[in-house]
């Protein structure tokens, strides 16, 4: 959080402490060619001893020598040596009246923060005196010290004082600047301690200040405050717009000091534009017009010939331009500006400055997601592809891949996927896995023709097999199983791909699985007769790892069912010593069980047990989840969970029992009664972010449809007339698919996704027999946190109740992150009906609190363990994949209720930091425990 000084061998990094997790930390790195290291250490130890004796000496030191020695200590510290004394002397210096002595004192304290409470009291006292001194220089020093340290103690002592200084009429400009930023720092570290009050409105008016330095500082402060309290700082919008417009229209000489290489006040402009990004486009048409004018002027200026050849000029100009573009993107309301922005970026794509190309690609990625400019971005596709091929800088190429991914849609998917595959062959190793995921997602998302999809994925495995993660090949199998139109093609293609003398293990896995399921579809061709298929797979067997072999064994037993004619060959293989006596337990068990199964079971039983896999419930692609994880700061454990969940899916094929269980009779095509549908009518407001309430309501309705003819009649043709008047009020961006469209899909099919947003996916699977139906509703939690109080209820209007009987089974009220729960609904259609029933789902995401803090004590694992146990929780060893982490669990008993608590403490030895996560069934409890424990380590 607040990193002090890092250094490594020859190079010393003097980190000038602006430390704050949110923002800039300035570091100067100095290379010093020192003498030998030993000599240096010797010299320093001598000097330290000298200083120590001076400080301990009886003679009182005068201010000058005290300053000299403290300064020396500081220097030694900055060279990377520990300093454990001198704090007291430094504090003494604070009360000196000489500037230099005071300055060194403050510097020492800012750099070597010490948590000794007695010292802090003295320091705070000195700061208080200086703040009250009315000497601008001293006030400045004191404010800088607070801003640099920014500790909680300081916030407690000064959070009330600083706003007064900031808005006082007689405060000097330079002090105002410092006070504004000082307050900002305190607000970031301890927002609860900074009181909002009438000073806020006066701060907003600082935007009108004569002194641009004050405006610069105030803008930073207001931007941060406005992010948390948009209402209170609303008035800043019009002020910011008018200030901005005065800057952009000024001649380059007007602002004198603040003109930087002919660009008027570039940093202030950037900050103002950033402030405006906290708000939606201004409502007042006059303000809005003025802002649009500003943005246009900025875009126009980009076209003007440069006023200077210096790179500083163009950088400053483009900094403003890029910030203006992000504001345009943020507002996303002026198609005209969006397209102009896009064209401007297009020019930069071919600019000779690497930085500009990089930034242009980055901004374009966000532009691509706006509906107004998506088309405009697409016009640059050739340039981007070219960048991928010719760009020298790897980070720029990476951006190009991102942009291609962002601009992809149905019209250009084939081209983009082909280009990405091409690039993959030569891509840098570090980004290959990400490209693989992206290709897999795009191919699936925009596949019109699933044979193309299958080809693409097989190509992926061929080109970059090592980077194809399990998720990717699980997914291809899911898709093949769920879509019967590609099964034959897939079988044929993998069969051909397997012919290659050396093929990647992942290909063997996919091949084994698909042939095991659908090998029969190509067995008619003598070139791929059952025996040939089997021999082909078995020729790869010995080169594969254990999990793959296990999968192949399952394939073999499936072959026994598909092709009785090669049963004996397979039994021979299973019977061989290398299988039956395999050292690996899993393989041995499979071989034994499968052999027995094939020997004793009748064909009927075999056929049932080894039935084709039922379609997978549709849900969010696990690959997408993985990519999100890769991008976001996801934790390893989440990923593990997903993998686990996936592999349990796969086990379905390996465990005959579960195959049996799920081998439901497939719905006959001439369904007696058909149609059911559902459309999520979502009135759900996105969870209010400011208030702590996290209850999310997702209203959706699900429905059964009409059976116009009497039950029992054979020639039912139902044309479900589904409620078409639903209003989908949710933002399209929130739902992954258009909800209405999803609803109507169920007119003609029984399975699929009913609803999906960032939190939840609802899948449906249903069977109907005459007037009865059964519907399985799958609720998938897409987040990594638990849902609590998960209560889906199906509501029928009064009219509907008479014509439709619904019987729902209750669901477990907790849904783990990434997990899926199933709800069964039994349906009886009494008479025909029009309206669809409503599915109402309520849940509150699990209450989790996290805190990251600096270690206050030596990071000793044993002591930490003792503390966790002493806290009253059980310590769970070997639960966390990272052995360095501590995981604990416990229950808080109260008279009224019991509260389960889980905690995880993740130490980072290098940074001397901890991350503490608490999850309990009550948020207030999580919060409090987190506060309590954060002080302990």
């Amino acid at each position: 959080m607040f990193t002090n000084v890092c250094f490594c061998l020859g190079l010393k990094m003097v980190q000038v402490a602006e430390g704050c997790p949110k923002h800039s930390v300035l570091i100067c790195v100095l290379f010093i060619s020192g003498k030998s290291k030993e000599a240096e250490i010797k010299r320093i130890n001598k000097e330290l001893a000298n200083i120590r004796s001076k400080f301990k000496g009886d003679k009182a030191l005068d201010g000058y020598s005290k300053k000299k020695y403290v300064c020396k200590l500081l220097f030694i510290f900055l060279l990377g040596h520990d300093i454990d004394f001198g704090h007291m002397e430094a504090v003494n210096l604070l009360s000196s009246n000489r500037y230099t002595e005071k300055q060194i004192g403050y510097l020492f304290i800012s750099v070597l923060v010490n948590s000794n409470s007695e010292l802090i009291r003295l320091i705070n006292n000195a700061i208080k005196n200086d703040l009250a001194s009315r000497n601008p220089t001293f006030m400045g020093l004191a404010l800088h010290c607070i801003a640099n340290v920014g500790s909680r103690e300081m916030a407690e002592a000064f959070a009330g004082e600083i706003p007064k200084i900031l808005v006082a009429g007689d405060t000097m400009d330079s002090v105002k600047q410092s006070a504004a930023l000082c307050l900002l720092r305190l607000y970031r570290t301890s927002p609860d301690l900074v009181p909002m009050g009438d000073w806020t409105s006066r701060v907003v008016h600082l935007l009108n200040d004569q002194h641009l330095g004050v405006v610069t500082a105030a803008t930073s402060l207001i931007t941060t405050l406005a992010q948390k309290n948009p209402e209170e700082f609303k008035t800043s919008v019009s002020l910011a717009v008018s200030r901005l417009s005065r800057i952009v229209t000024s001649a380059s000489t007007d602002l004198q000091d603040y003109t930087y290489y002919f660009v008027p006040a570039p940093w202030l402009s950037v900050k103002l534009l950033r402030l405006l990004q906290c708000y939606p486009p201004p409502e007042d048409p006059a303000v809005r017009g003025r802002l649009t004018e500003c943005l246009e002027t900025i875009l126009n200026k980009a076209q003007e010939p440069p006023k200077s050849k210096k790179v500083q000029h163009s950088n400053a100009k483009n900094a403003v331009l890029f910030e203006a573009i992000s504001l345009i993107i943020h507002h996303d309301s002026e198609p005209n500006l969006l397209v102009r922005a896009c064209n401007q970026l297009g020019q930069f794509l071919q600019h000779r400055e690497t930085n500009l190309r990089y930034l242009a690609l980055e901004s374009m990625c966000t532009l691509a997601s706006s509906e107004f400019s998506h088309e405009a971005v697409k016009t640059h596709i050739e340039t981007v592809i070219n960048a991928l091929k010719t760009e020298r800088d790897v980070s720029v190429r990476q951006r190009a891949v991102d942009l291609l991914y962002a601009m992809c849609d149905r019209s250009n998917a084939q081209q983009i996927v082909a280009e990405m595959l091409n690039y993959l062959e030569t891509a840098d190793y570090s980004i290959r896995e990400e490209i693989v995921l992206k290709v897999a997602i795009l191919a699936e998302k925009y596949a019109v023709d699933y044979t193309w999809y299958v080809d693409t994925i097989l190509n992926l495995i061929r080109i970059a097999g090592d980077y194809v993660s399990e998720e990717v090949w699980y997914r291809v199998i899911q898709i093949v199983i769920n879509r019967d139109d590609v099964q034959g093609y897939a079988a044929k293609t993998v069969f051909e791909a397997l012919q290659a003398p050396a093929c990647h293990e992942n290909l063997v896995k996919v091949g084994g699985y698909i042939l095991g399921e659908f090998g029969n579809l190509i067995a008619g061709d003598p070139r791929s007769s059952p025996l040939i298929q089997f021999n082909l797979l078995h020729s790869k067997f010995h080169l594969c790892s254990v999990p793959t072999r296990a999968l192949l064994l399952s394939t073999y037993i499936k072959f026994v069912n598909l092709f009785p004619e090669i049963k004996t060959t397979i039994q021979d293989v299973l019977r061989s010593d290398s299988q039956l006596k395999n050292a690996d337990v899993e393989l041995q068990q499979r071989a034994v069980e499968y052999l027995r199964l094939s020997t004793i079971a009748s064909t009927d039983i075999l056929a049932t047990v080894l039935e084709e896999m039922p379609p997978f419930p549709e849900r969010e692609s696990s690959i997408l989840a993985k990519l999100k994880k890769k991008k976001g700061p996801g934790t390893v454990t989440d990923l593990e969970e997903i993998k686990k969940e996936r592999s349990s899916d796969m086990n379905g094929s390996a465990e005959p029992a579960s195959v049996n269980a799920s081998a439901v009779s497939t719905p006959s095509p001439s369904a007696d009664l058909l149609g059911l549908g559902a459309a999520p009518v979502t009135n759900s407001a996105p969870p209010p972010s400011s208030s702590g309430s996290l209850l999310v309501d997702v209203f959706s309705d699900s429905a059964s449809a009409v059976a116009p003819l009497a039950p029992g009649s054979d020639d039912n043709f139902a044309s479900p007339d589904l409620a078409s008047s639903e209003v989908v009020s949710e933002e399209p961006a929130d739902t992954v698919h258009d909800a209405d469209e999803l609803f109507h899909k169920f007119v003609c099919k029984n399975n699929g996704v009913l609803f999906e947003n960032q939190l939840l996916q609802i899948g449906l699977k249903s069977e109907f027999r005459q007037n009865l139906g059964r519907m399985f509703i799958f609720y998938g939690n897409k987040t990594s946190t638990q849902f609590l109080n998960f209560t889906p209820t199906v509501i029928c209007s009064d009219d509907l109740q008479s014509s439709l009987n619904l019987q729902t089974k209750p669901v477990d009220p907790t849904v783990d992150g990434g997990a899926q729960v199933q709800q069964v609904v039994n349906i009886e259609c009494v008479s025909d009906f029009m309206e669809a029933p409503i599915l109402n789902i309520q849940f509150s995401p699990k209450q989790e609190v996290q805190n990251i803090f600096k270690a206050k004590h030596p990071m000793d694992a044993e002591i930490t363990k003792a503390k966790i146990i002493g806290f009253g929780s059980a310590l769970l060893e070997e639960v966390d994949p990272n052995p360095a982490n501590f995981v604990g669990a416990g229950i808080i008993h109260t008279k009224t209720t019991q509260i389960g608590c889980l905690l995880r403490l993740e130490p980072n030895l290098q940074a001397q930091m901890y991350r503490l996560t608490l999850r309990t069934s009550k948020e207030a409890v999580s919060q409090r425990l987190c506060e309590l424990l954060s002080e302990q380590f």
Partner: protein
Amino acid sequence: LPFRNFKIIYRRYAGLYFCICVDVTDNNLAYLEAIHNFVEVLNEYFHNVCELDLVFNFYKVYTVVDEMFLAGEIRETSQTKVLKQLLMLQSLE
């Protein structure tokens, strides 16, 4: 450029790297130029700055930094204003 959850923007002046660590969403070019602005001030203040100036006058460097950046934000961008203030402080020594 990217670094953990932040990104680092750097600029090289002879043997010296000046790095600044900012949020991923921050404006790259603006901070790149802020570094340059800072260096120009140093240059002016120390009259043709070199490494040794920075090493031996590290406490002055801190003052310059405090004048230009505070609480992780850009405080003052006007070179003349910063220099005026610095000279004022120097006269107090």
